[in-house]
Each structure stands twice: as C-alpha cells, then as structure tokens.
C-alpha cells in the first residue's frame, strides 16, 4: 500500500468510528464527506496537480492522528460579527452550517477537503450581517491540526479577513460573499518546517467584490489550493500572490478561478522569488463556463530565481467554453535583470542593497492595497519609511 492508501484507509476507519462516538461537533453530518472518500483516491506523488509536490510526508505525519487540541484565542472579530465554534453551535448556527458548509467545495476535485471534515479538531462559523460596513476579522491558529472556517458575508456588507501566520496541518477557509458585498481576504504564511495542506474556497455572488492575497514563505511541504467561483453576474475577483522562498523550503499554490456567471472580471497577479534550494510551484487556471459571456479574466505570473539550485514551476491554464470573453495570461521565469542591477550600482548603490531593492520592487508589483505593510514585513522587504 502507498502512503496515500494507508492514510486513506485510516481516515475511513476514523470516519466510521466517528459516526458512533464523534469527538468534536458530534452533530455535524460527515456522511457526504465519507461517501466522497469511499469514491475518490487521495493524491499520490506525481499524480495530477501533484507533479512537483510530494504529499507522502504529510500522510505519514498525520497517519497516527493529530496533536491534541490546544485552546487558543484563535479568532478576533469586530463588533457585529458573529463567531460560533462548531462544537458549541446552537440550533440556529447548526442550521446555517448545515446549509452552507461544503457548498462551494467540489469533493472530487479536492479529496483532501473531505479528510478535513473527518479529522476536524476546530471549526468556526463567522457571520457578517447584511449591510455591515468595516467588519474586521483576524484569524490566528485555532488550535488543533485540522481547522475549518466558514465565513458568510451578508449581502451588501463590507468585511476584511486577515489570516495571521499559522501552520496547522490542514485549514479550510470557505467564504460566501453575498450579493453586492465586498470581502478583502489576506493570508500570511511565514517560514516554517511544517507539512501543510490548505484550501480556500470562495463563492462570489452577483455584483460582489472579492479580493484575496496570499503572502507566503515556504515550509517543508506547503500546499495551498485556492478555488474561487464568480457565481453571480458581474462578480469581481482580484488575486494577489507574493512569495519569497529560501533554504530548502517549498510552496505549491494552485489557483482555480471559475467563472460560472457572465460579466465577471478576474485578475491574478503573482510574483515569486526563489532563493537557495527552495522550490515554488504555481498553477493558475481560469475556467470560463458556457454562458459566462462578457467575462474579462487575466493572469500574470512571474518568478525570479536567485540561485542556481532554486526551482520554480509555473503554469497558466485556460479553459474557455464561452465565445464572448476577454482572457489574457502570461507566465515568465527569470533572474535579476542585469541592466537594472548595473543601473542601481552605477548610482553608488552596493550590489547587495541593489539586489534587495530589485527583489522588493518585483514583489511589490503583486501587493496591491491588501495589507501591504504586513506583506513587506513577512517577505522581508520592508520599505523605507517616510518617503511617500
């Protein structure tokens, strides 16, 4: 048996036992996830979308169960935002969770999402009421290796979700962005030696705006699947990715923007810097479903390699089934621009500082206005203060 098969068998066994004596949130219906797991194998090394990332160490690390729960503050939200732990959910929250959890997740595309349901150690549902403005949510480690966040942003509401650095084994963040609502979602991932698999799955309703940023350093194995659906007419999606990897660290980011409704826009801007023997993997897919006419989608992904043994694999993928769309994509791989380096040095700027400036400038292109200060601090490209 492979590591994936062994792990799969253990999760199924756990799942069957859970049905009898669940440990966490016993009321939660894990049936559909278990059924999906019966059907679908877990990713093997070199299987589709896992060509450059090896999930085996992750399976092996968690095959004997996850660490005990730790009680942490975990989540802080501004006034008016409702936060409920799945375990303590009352009937109203349970109804909301039942109605919405996994609503955005394709269990066949993301089989590891079902694993999260079975091994769940802590989950929260976060509700931003319709029409709310300035709602702020900060998410730290929730405690427990398998975490789940269900964020529901009501129609017309404006909210910001900031994920502080945390390295659980597996975190799923599901965001439902209501009609005309706006969600800014920033994820920070600092350097670690952990084994991680994460999924962001967001559904953007008509006229809503979703902006997502992932600012990251690497880990021993860090895989981020990001699935965003433009589900209502005129949904507006903006994705920023900036990473700076060093040592032997790894980061695999797979973004899938799915336009299922018309008149939507999506923009993906990704800049990755890879040093030493680190490895970055990026897959950016744009799927435009039949009927999603007048979609305007674009993807720009650039990687900069700073060392001979640094590796980056980047692939844009377009699947277009509508005929009245605009879709642009570009992926480049390069080194520090020698002309730019000479230009800076000819102004007296030493080579090390010049390189740092060029790296910072390169990453800056992907920051946008989503928590740029936090991004610079995380990526070690602190800008000079007071020069604006």
């Amino acid at each position, binding site marked *: 048996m492979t590591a994936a098969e062994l792990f799969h068998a253990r999760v199924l066994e756990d799942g069957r036992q859970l049905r009898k004596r669940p440990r966490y949130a016993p009321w939660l219906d894990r049936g559909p996830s278990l059924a999906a797991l019966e059907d679908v194998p877990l990713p093997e090394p070199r299987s589709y979308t896992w060509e450059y990332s090896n999930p085996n160490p992750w399976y092996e690390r968690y095959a004997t169960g996850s660490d005990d729960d730790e009680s942490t503050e975990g989540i802080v939200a501004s006034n008016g935002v409702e936060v409920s732990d799945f375990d303590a959910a009352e009937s109203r929250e349970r109804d909301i969770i039942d109605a919405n959890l996994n609503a955005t997740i394709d269990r066949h595309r993301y089989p590891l999402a079902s694993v999260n349901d079975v091994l769940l150690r802590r989950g929260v549902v976060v509700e931003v009421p319709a029409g709310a403005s300035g709602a702020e949510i900060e998410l730290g480690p929730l405690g427990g290796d398998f975490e789940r966040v269900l964020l529901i942003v009501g129609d017309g509401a404006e909210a910001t979700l900031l994920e502080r650095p945390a390295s659980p084994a597996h975190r799923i963040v599901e965001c439902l962005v209501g009609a005309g609502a706006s969600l800014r979602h920033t994820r920070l991932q600092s350097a670690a030696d952990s084994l991680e698999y994460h999924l962001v799955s967001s559904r953007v309703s008509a006229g809503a705006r979703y902006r997502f940023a992932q600012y990251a350093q690497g880990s021993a194995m860090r895989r981020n699947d990001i699935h965003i659906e433009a589900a209502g007419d005129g949904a507006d999606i903006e994705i920023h990715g900036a990473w700076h990897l060093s040592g032997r660290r790894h980061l695999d980011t797979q973004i899938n923007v799915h336009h299922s409704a018309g008149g939507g826009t999506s923009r993906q801007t990704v800049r990755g810097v890879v040093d030493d023997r680190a490895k970055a993997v990026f897959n950016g897919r744009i799927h435009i479903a039949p009927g999603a006419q007048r979609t305007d989608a674009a993807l720009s992904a650039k990687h900069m390699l700073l060392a001979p043994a640094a590796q980056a694999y980047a692939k844009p993928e377009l699947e277009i089934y509508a005929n009245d769309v605009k879709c642009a994509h570009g992926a480049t791989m390069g080194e520090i621009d020698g*002309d730019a380096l*000479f230009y*800076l040095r*000819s102004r*007296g*700027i030493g080579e090390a500082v010049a390189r740092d400036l060029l790296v910072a400038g390169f990453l800056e292109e992907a920051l946008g206005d989503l928590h740029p200060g936090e991004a610079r601090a995380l990526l070690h490209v602190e800008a*000079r*203060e007071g020069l*604006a």
Partner: protein
Amino acid sequence: MLEITDLHARAAGKPILKGIDLVVRPGEVHAIMGPNGSGKSTLANALAGRPDVEVTAGDMRLEGTSLIGLAPEERAHLGLFLAFQYPVEIPGVSNMEFLKAAVDSHNKALERDELSAASFVALAREAASRLHLAPEFLRRGVNAGFSGGEKKRNEILQMLLLEPRLAVLDETDSGLDIDALRTVASGVNAFASEANAVLLITHYQRLLDHITPDFVHVLLDGRIARTGDKSLAHALEADGYARLAESGA
C-alpha cells in the same frame, strides 16, 4: 579630473575601443561625437564599469585613481556619474526610494551623515521642480511608464542630487523634443562648475546649441580622429562624418 590613456575595450567580445586618449580638466565641458558604432556608448560604459564591457589595455584615472577593476558603485563614490542612453525601468521601486538609496550610499561611502527622510524629500522635490517635474513623479516607479523626456530628466535629477565630479551624458539628447532638450540643457548648465566636468556624448550637434563645449572630439572606429572647439561640431553638421572619415584616411 579624468585621464584616459590608450584605452582598448571590447563589448560583447568584439573590439570596439582601439586606443582612446583623453584628458578632461575641472571646469571643462567636452563633447564626444561620432557616427553609430564608433564606440561612443562603449566609452561611456567602460568608464561606468558595465560588466559586459571588458577593458583590454590602457587606463582611465579619475582624480588620480585608476577605475580599472573597480565596481560600478565604487566609481560612483569616486564622483563618476553616467546618464544612461536608455534608462532602465524598475516598476516596483519608487523613484524616491531609489534616489534616497543612491544618496545614502554616497553619504555612507564618503563617511558623511545620513540625511533624514524629511530633509531628503525636501531636497528631491526642489531638484525635481528645477526640472519641471511634478512631485507625483517622485512617487512613481523608477522610469516606469515615463515618457522619453521624463526618463532623461530623471537622469539629470539624479545627477543634481548626487553632485558628481565628472558627469558623462550618453546621448541624453536623443528622443527629446525641443522643450525637453532646453530643460535638460539648463539642468546641465546649472550643474557645470569649476569644480566638476562634463563629458557629453552625442550624435547630433543640436545639444551643443544649448550647452557650449570647450572641446569637441570626433570618435571614428574606436579612436579619437579629431579634436577641436565647437566650430568642429558645426563643420560636422554641414559635412557629415563620412567626409571626415575620408579626409582622415
């Protein structure tokens, strides 16, 4: 100020400079003219230390110190400045951040006190306004999306802030309309003093209507073929380089 003796250099592996001799004294403005491919830009790049230009023989001394083997930043700290023919675009680095890093590096190398952010910003704005550049220009990415004229004015802005001993202007006039040419020329004229020197590299005589050189040198096939005063530039404009090449041959 600058003493170049029997300088030979290759660019991209090809011999371009074949024995340049040139002396520039403080307070002087020299123009180097020549047709395409004569080695004008290679000379500028050899002075500044561009990595793909290889000096194979001869010497270049700035105020007595040989530039051979020095890093580009070390040459800058000695007081050399090259205004690029094609200034490089660096989109994610703001012009202000770049200028501050450049000035800081000079102050550090020369063991002078670092300027505070506030006093630097005031200095940069003042210099920008002298070149008719809006303050907004300082917040944009280095040369990113700048027009040809803005890029060249940005080069002059850097020159004004860094106060070099020797400024080498490589085809700074190319691609400029007449108003931008006047602005750039007045920046250079304001800069030039008895304490520094200017080396103007140009293809056309028109820049020399606005900046008066003390000497004009004509570069042909990697050597200085002729030296004269500004009337030489007028003669070239009338007769062209080919005539000169024939008469020299």
